[in-house]
């Protein structure tokens, strides 16, 4: 029989979490009630993920989380435990190093203006391209894949062109359509 105060579950609230971030392993103490976005920016010094809206609407905080794109403003930091996470910092060594082909394509196509949306855009594009290595890619598919990333500057056309240029198998270049 259980006494009244006996705890009947074996789960423990974690004191620290361990995860792989940009190919490096980290163990950090839990800060209760923290968002993944804040952990990345404030504690790990990664300013690539940005806070636009903080409410899931803009995608500026996008990270690649176990192979899919998520808004880090909506993810509890605790959930990083055991995860593999990539931010824009994990794609290259910066301008001096070799850029990821998607980053290079953004530069080549003039797809960056103020740059606030760019890390999220590039990461959503990476996930999309990774999932479509052998599917013919069209512009409407790209628009749909990037529909959770808002850009106030470019008008999107150059971003879509930059991603299209990276697709290993290209579908009809003229195909247009509602997303």
């Amino acid at each position, binding site marked *: 029989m259980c006494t009244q105060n006996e*705890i*009947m*579950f*074996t*789960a*423990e*609230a*974690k004191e620290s979490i361990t995860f792989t971030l940009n190919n490096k392993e980290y163990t950090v103490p*839990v800060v*209760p*009630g*923290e*968002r993944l976005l804040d952990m990345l920016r404030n504690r790990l010094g990664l300013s690539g993920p940005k806070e636009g809206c*903080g*409410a*899931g*609407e803009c*995608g500026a905080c*996008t990270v690649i989380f176990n192979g*899919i*794109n*998520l*808004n880090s*403003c*909506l*993810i*509890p930091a*605790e*959930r990083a*435990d055991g995860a593999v996470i990539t931010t824009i910092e994990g794609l290259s060594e910066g301008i001096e190093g070799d850029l990821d082909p998607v980053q290079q394509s953004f530069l080549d196509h003039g797809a960056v203006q103020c740059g606030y949306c760019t890390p999220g855009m590039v990461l*959503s594009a990476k996930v999309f391209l990774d999932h479509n290595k052998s599917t013919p890619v069209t512009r409407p598919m790209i628009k*749909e*894949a990037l*529909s*959770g*990333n*808002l850009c106030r500057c470019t008008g999107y056309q150059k971003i879509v062109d930059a991603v299209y240029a990276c697709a290993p198998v290209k579908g009809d270049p003229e195909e247009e359509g*509602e*997303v």
Partner: protein
Amino acid sequence: MYWEKYYFAQSIEETLELLKHYEGDARIMAGGTDLMVQFKYNYLSAKVMVDIGRIKELNHIRQENGHVSIGATTTHTALATSPYLQKHFQVLASGVRTIGSPQIRNAGTIGGNVANAQPAADGSIALVALGATICGISPDGPFSRPIESTFLNPGECALNSTAELITSFTFPAPGPRDRSAFVRHSRRAALALPIMNMGLWLRLNEEEDGIEDARIAIGPMARVPFRAKKTEAFLRGAKLSEAVLDEAGELTFEEVSPRDSFRGSAAYKKELVRVYLKRAVLEAVGERSVGK
């Protein structure tokens, strides 16, 4: 600070025990897409989170014993990309495909969509059209009841997420003459709430030239997902024809009484259901099956 303690429940039993132990201070967290926004704007607070995302049995799409079972933590992405659902349950696959954005669908779950009890939640509308049963477990034991009985008011669910857990949704396995469709009207295709959304399920008669049974769910037309029961009754036994569909649209127009809201005026929403009822049927059965 949004919460003080964060648990990953390892099993359904452990979820219930954690909730019980904290006596109302702990709340279930699934994808977090609704909760994190509610925390941000201080609409809600909870001392303890019980994350159910790592309980494997809550994440499934399967057909068994004449029923389809969808686990509560199945994400919208998993539902929208399931070839099985795309083939047999268009209303659900394309309904959840309209939710938010890829990032939102990658995190958001069907259980959270229903528990949030919004009258135009796309997942809820689809499940109501399928006549789904909600299965779960409360401190008194397992329960299963019609999904419609869980919606009380906008944002208010009969289920208490600080004590009870939704485990799955079930609905009958697909029949050879069953058809369904989901239609939606919004300002943009992505990241836009529906001005009107509608889930439709039909069973054709044996000749496949008429309708044997129908279920229609529409949002946001009332305080809960709205069942167009008069239109359903009219469609039962009706032959498929343009004239019949026009008349059905007229009936739906008459039986909804939406309110003016930031999404659109009542008059506009009424016009929408008239047009979209017909579109939904045509999409479900294919335009060629419909006579003049």
